């Protein structure tokens, strides 16, 4: 039992923190949002230089063979700084699928991911799918040796700047059947792909995507095109784990700036942080943060579990805790700031918004609580 980072992990943390400290000031982030595509290619290039984009890939694939703790370290740092670049979409989600892809697929796509020249996006959400990964209407019909994809995908993170989309589509069965879901690599510029990008509530980007008879080759399918839901579940669980870590980073910073604020803000002739009502709120936020951190650790450990039911259940439990803590810390941070908390000018509001959106991604607390309850709880 050891919760300390190894020497190498500490170095990684220091280098990510250092990079973001120098390049991700609050004002800089505003500039990045205004850039073409809504994020900074320059920052992305620095991520590539520092090896962050190759972290989870094997050395044979040109990566660093790092594990889930390293991803956790990076995601926490991204959360602390409200980073809007497509790390989750490209490295965790896209990379997660490619790591489970064929040698040819890895060779074709990973070098571009690792050197920062290419980005990826995961097109999964549909009009009625909500959080159910197996609820897929978009179709992939066999045609010659390849497939023809048709359907609509929504809220695809960074879908408007990705070079390649990773699309879930149904090869057989009905809308909610577990069997018959495939995962396909689709070039964003393929004929029949119609992408409409927009800004998200938290300052990032997403897109709605129409697929009109898009033709892809047989080599576009990742894993078994007839039965790929298990891969989707695993990769999305890894994304949930990463979101937990990002949320911990964002909560940590939100609490920090809120405590700083109430130490400085004076009313009735004293710092408002001297009032017990505010102190107790801040103390409860600390408790929410630390219990979330504990569950984020556990979720990152669960990434290596070989028992997939146990893995899924643990990640779901973590997402419940993170969802509840993030709500509490986000709302509490705004409340401690008072009026300025609801302005664009102060940082706290932006943390609140990101924390709120994390809850809406890949299942909220209620959704995951239902899953844990159905599995009979998590007490051994």
């Amino acid at each position, binding site marked *: 039992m*050891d919760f*300390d980072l190894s020497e190498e992990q500490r170095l990684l943390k220091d280098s990510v923190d250092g990079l973001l400290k120098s390049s991700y000031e609050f004002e800089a982030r505003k500039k990045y949002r205004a850039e073409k595509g809504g994020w900074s290619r320059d920052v992305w290039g620095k991520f590539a230089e520092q090896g962050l984009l190759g972290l989870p890939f094997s050395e044979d694939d040109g990566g660093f063979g790092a594990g889930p703790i390293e991803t956790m370290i990076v995601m926490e740092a991204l959360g602390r700084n409200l980073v809007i670049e497509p790390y989750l979409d490209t490295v965790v989600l896209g990379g997660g699928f490619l790591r489970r892809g064929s040698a040819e697929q890895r060779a074709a796509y990973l070098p571009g991911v690792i050197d920062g020249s290419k980005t990826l996006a995961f097109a999964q959400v549909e009009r009625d799918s909500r959080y159910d990964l197996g609820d897929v209407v978009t179709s992939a019909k066999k045609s010659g040796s390849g497939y023809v994809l048709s359907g609509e995908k929504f809220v695809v993170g960074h879908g408007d700047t990705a070079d390649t989309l990773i699309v879930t589509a149904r090869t057989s069965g009905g809308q909610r059947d577990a069997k018959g879901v495939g995962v396909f690599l689709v070039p964003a510029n393929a004929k029949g792909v119609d992408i409409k990008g927009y800004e998200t509530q938290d300052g990032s980007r997403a897109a709605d995507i129409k697929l009109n008879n898009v033709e892809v080759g047989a080599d576009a399918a990742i894993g078994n095109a007839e039965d790929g839901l298990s891969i989707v579940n695993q990769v999305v669980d890894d994304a949930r784990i990463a979101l937990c870590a990002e949320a911990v980073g964002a909560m940590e910073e939100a609490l920090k700036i809120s*405590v700083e604020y109430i130490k400085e803000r004076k009313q009735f002739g004293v710092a408002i942080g001297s009032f017990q009502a505010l102190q107790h709120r*801040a*103390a409860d936020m*600390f*408790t929410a943060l630390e*219990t979330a951190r504990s569950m984020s650790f556990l979720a990152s450990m669960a990434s290596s579990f070989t028992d997939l039911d146990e893995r899924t259940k643990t990640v779901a439990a973590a997402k419940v805790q993170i969802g509840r803590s993030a709500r509490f810390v986000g709302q509490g941070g705004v409340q401690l700031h008072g009026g300025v908390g609801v302005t664009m000018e102060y940082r706290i509001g932006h943390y609140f918004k990101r924390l709120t959106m994390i809850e809406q991604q890949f299942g909220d607390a209620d959704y995951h609580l239902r899953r844990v309850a159905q599995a009979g*709880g998590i007490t051994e």
Partner: protein
Amino acid sequence: MDLSFSKEEVAFREEVRTFFRESLDPVVRKKLQEGHHTSKDDLVNWQRTLNKKGWAVPHWPTEYGGTGWSAAKQYIFLEELQKTPAPPPLPFGVNMVGPVIYTFGNEAQKKHYLPRIANMDDWWCQGFSEPGSGSDLASLKTTAKKKGDTYIVNGQKTWTTLAQHADWIFCLCRTDPDAKKQSGISFILIDMKSKGITVRPIQTIDGGVEVNEVFFDEVVVPAENLVGEENKGWDYAKFLLGNERVNIARVGMSKERIRRIKELASSVMSGDKPLIEDPQFRQKLAATEIELKALELTQMRVVAAEGKHGKGKPDPASSILKIKGSEIQQTLTELLLEVTGPFALPFMPEGEGQNEEGDWASPIAPTYFNYRKVSIYGGSNEIQRNIIAKAVLGL
């Protein structure tokens, strides 16, 4: 980072689990599982069983009978003890006055008291709170006036847990009436058989007698019963209360209670299905299980840090353990209460004949009532929030 236990620790868990299950009287185990009170003899016998095995005071320094176990092993030991469930060691001796004596007491005191605490030859109780001094403990008024080689003690203590069984009480008494609040307090050991001591039971809302008032009227105490230095008692009390917080999460006990809830809710019907299949009930239970998991991991983080960086000062983050631990214990007694349905109502004083249908249910509402105490004692949860705000957040 590695959250798993080592092979040796896993084997150790098996060893303590087996020992607990084989050596604890099944009648006592059943009492604890079902929420009935245990008797004085139940606790004393169990403590002596542990002492025979050399496990009476695992966390003490080895020279006084400790086992020298790592922080992780101490944690496993307590968790398994609570999961069995076995009677928790009476904290007043092994967790409170024992560590104060071996840290601040003189050689004669160590030699006399420590082995008797380990074997529970003496039953200890705690004389801290007074009617006017709860959270503001340092305002206490009980006095100890030096007279020759004795102290004359006058005043009143309250909330004195299980004082009706006690042979000894450790007391905070004011020895310097002119000193400011925290200074001027001394830590004194008093024989409960002394002339001038009166114990008045306070009945708690569950109908039990767990706490008492203790009155001191011109009680003569040998001066050699002073621990450490005169007027330094507040420091020793802070040390003692810091130790108390570490053991307060009670993760193992809550795990056992979850097992019990699942067991009962599987046999209690709600409509045409067992209650455990009611989605709303199940989700409430699952939500608590998740909170318990988060608490367990947080507890392990505190334990691992202690193992690595040494004991030193109590970790202020352990206030989280107190707050979350007590909240979860209360939620679980609430869920148990919900399981009982209408059978929560019959009040069955212990020892009297029990209504057959309500037999399993009768201790549950009293436990729920009684457990409101856990967010009040040991530094109320509001005091814990003050500690976090000041010691952690710097407010």
